[in-house]
């Protein structure tokens, strides 16, 4: 008779302890149960991962929506990525739906790596999105396949989205033979990221810092043109290297990098990767690219300023751990670094210093864009969404919530920008870096990367063999010559496909 009572008492005690624990956590606002509370709140909020549950329940119950138009938006950013993205999408949805009471905005997150595949199935299944964020990686091929709506007429009647309001380098990827098929919403560029704390520890490098209005060194900011040339870069990274202590001046990646590994340097030395039409590789037309690759090889094998090669999940992985003082990354990396390091902001960014054939700081830049699908049922509504996101309001929202810089010139004259730079000095150089960018042309980038990556990997990993005359290539120039041949074969194949598609379209129209 005693046993059930004992069990009941135990259960009751356990429940009381649990309740007390939850209450204490909730009161303190941190701890396991507070986190669970936040998560439940997130789940039930409009921006959480189950944000569409209410809508789905309504549909299942046969309740007619008060918003008859549905705008389906796909993005490789996701409300469930981080709390910042959740706030961003929530804010966009709220603002847009407030202005369009008849429109229901439905976001769908699609991971970047699967975006093309998912779009293909969406097209085949006749359920493609109305609007989606389009990387410059896919843009041209999508337009060539008739997936994107031509936007020229819409732009003509929208003063806030005229070309002169954008940085020129951000516009290259959104058009083809006069047809405009996308509006850039972010501005990205390859860049060098510098650990300012490590520079501060070396008084001989203090000249790299910017100065404040009193002429005093400001160790929270690095000058845009701090690094004069490649030789200066070599000296700086050697000074910052202490391999015995496990600290290196610069991280060089060999694995899976391909042209990403050297094109920032090559552009700063006067080279280009390809022609705009995507018919020919240009990187082998000048010794500038081979010099850039040789510069990296020398930094690795002669100056030994880099930690050993290894596959990495992100180019800034060692940088944010403080193991390298300088790393090649992108202007988008900043927000990830701040988040991954729980708020460290002691870094700055620059473009690539000029090489022996270069004249100024350079890089490659591009603007990922919002596009409207060619099968969009409500293109006017979709265009209104683009106006919001790609206009000044959306640019300010992305800066405030996501620390994303905009391809819009007006953002950099705004109060939001001045405040953001005061709070996060690493942002200061980003517009200069992007503006210094040569447009990054992308024709069949995945196929091109597949040809270039193994050659670059071989060269970087086996350079001592190559130098000794026992390698598969004579030197960097020979490797690039082979790579250019392979890339040209990819371009030739793609041009044949484009011609084939054009002929098919002509036949269809003739019928």
């Amino acid at each position, binding site marked *: 008779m005693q046993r059930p009572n004992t069990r009941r008492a135990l259960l009751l005690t356990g429940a009381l302890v649990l309740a007390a624990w939850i209450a204490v956590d909730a009161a303190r606002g941190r701890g396991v149960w507070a986190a669970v509370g936040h998560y439940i709140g997130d789940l039930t909020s409009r921006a959480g991962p189950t944000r569409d549950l209410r809508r789905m329940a309504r549909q299942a119950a046969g309740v007619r929506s008060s918003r008859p138009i549905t705008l389906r938006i796909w993005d490789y950013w996701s409300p469930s990525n981080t709390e910042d993205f959740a706030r961003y999408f929530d804010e966009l949805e709220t603002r847009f739906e407030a202005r369009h009471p008849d429109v229901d905005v439905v976001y769908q997150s699609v991971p970047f790596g699967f975006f093309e595949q998912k779009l293909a199935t969406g097209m085949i299944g006749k359920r493609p999105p109305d609007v989606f964020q389009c990387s410059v990686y896919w843009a041209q091929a999508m337009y060539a396949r008739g997936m994107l709506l031509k936007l020229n007429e819409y732009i003509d009647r929208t003063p806030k989205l005229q070309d002169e309001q954008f940085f020129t380098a951000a516009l290259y990827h959104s058009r083809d033979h006069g047809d405009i098929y996308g509006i850039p919403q972010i501005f990205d560029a390859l860049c060098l990221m510098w650990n300012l704390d490590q520079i501060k520890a070396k008084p001989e490098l203090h000249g790299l810092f910017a100065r404040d209005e009193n002429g005093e060194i400001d160790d929270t900011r690095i000058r845009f043109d701090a690094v004069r040339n490649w030789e200066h870069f070599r000296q700086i990274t050697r000074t910052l290297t202490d391999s015995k202590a496990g600290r290196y001046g610069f991280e060089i990646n060999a694995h899976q990098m391909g042209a990403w590994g050297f094109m920032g340097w090559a552009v700063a030395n006067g080279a280009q990767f390809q022609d705009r039409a995507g018919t020919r590789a240009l990187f082998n037309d000048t010794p500038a690219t081979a010099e850039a690759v040789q510069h990296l090889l020398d930094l690795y094998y002669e100056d030994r300023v880099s930690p050993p090669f290894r596959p990495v999940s992100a180019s800034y992985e060692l940088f944010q751990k403080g193991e390298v003082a300088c790393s090649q990354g992108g202007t988008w990396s900043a927000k990830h670094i701040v988040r991954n390091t729980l708020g460290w902001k002691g870094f700055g960014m620059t473009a690539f210093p000029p090489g022996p054939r270069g004249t100024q700081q350079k890089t490659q830049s591009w603007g990922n864009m919002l596009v409207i699908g060619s099968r969009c049922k409500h293109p006017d509504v979709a265009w209104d969404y683009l106006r919001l996101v790609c206009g000044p309001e959306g640019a300010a929202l992305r800066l405030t919530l996501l620390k994303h810089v905009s391809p819009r010139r007006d953002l950099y004259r705004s109060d939001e920008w001045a405040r953001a730079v005061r709070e996060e000095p690493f942002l200061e150089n980003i517009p200069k870096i992007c503006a210094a960018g040569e447009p990054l042309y992308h024709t069949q980038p995945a196929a091109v990367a*597949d040809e270039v990556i193994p050659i670059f990997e071989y060269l970087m990993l086996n350079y001592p063999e190559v130098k000794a005359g026992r390698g598969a290539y004579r030197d960097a120039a020979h490797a690039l010559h082979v790579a250019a041949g392979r890339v040209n074969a990819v371009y030739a194949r793609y041009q044949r*496909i484009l011609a084939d*598609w054009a002929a098919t379209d002509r036949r269809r129209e003739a019928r």
Partner: protein
Amino acid sequence: MGQRTAPERTQPVAYLYIAPAFLLVIVFTLVSMGLSFYVSLHSWDPIRGHGQFVGASNYVRALVGENSVFWLALRNTAMYVAMSVVGVLITSLPLAMLCRKARYGQSLFRTLYFLPSITPMVVLSLVWLWLFDAWGKPLSSPRTALLAIAMLGVWQAAGYNMLLFLAGLSEIPQAFYDAARVDGASRWQEFRYVTIPLLRNTIIFVTVMVVIGAFQVFTQAYIMTRGGPERSTEVVALQVFKNAFSYAGQMGYASAMAWLLFAVLFVVIMIQMRVFRSQRTYDE
């Protein structure tokens, strides 16, 4: 006296029982394969759809085309298959024998070894990516990268195949071992002359299944190396995926490569079945 029943093969209702499964096989296997073959004869883009008929040129390009990586990918795939078969046999069978010997906790060991088999390969690949980074970086070198991803494949498959071997071992009558012992056989001789011959059918089954699975290796290569370094882990399924979904207008070429892989696999399995023809090994 019961009523005489019609011979099994003349009972039409039996066809009804298998009809749903047969329909699924037709729609999702045979029709899909037929479509894939049709696509392989065309220049095809998944988004634009139907392209020009190009005959066997996709096959020719894969087999003898300049810069074609099909043969390299096939060689890597074959090496992966060899490593997987050897790896699975030398891990699963000993594990099964050890598990069988275990006096206590046999279920616990079985469960522990089986756990990787029910964990998605994507998750395992990510975990092992970090582990390999900490343990000597085998993925960094073209000499060891394929071996490293094969090790992961073996590690995942070992538990499942161990269960198959356990089932096979439990089928061997104890009397055979008793007789061998009476005849003075050593442990090794028991294993060599009793266990191995009587496990023959299980070994053949495991080998065939591992070969089929290993020829389609994709996830590890995609997640961990993307075919690198220096194409040392470029396998056929990865090439098929890249061409189908990452390169514009190459679905036909990707389908041709998939069919070539199928042909290779078909021939290998046929040879395997012919050499190791299943047989009854003892009287019950």
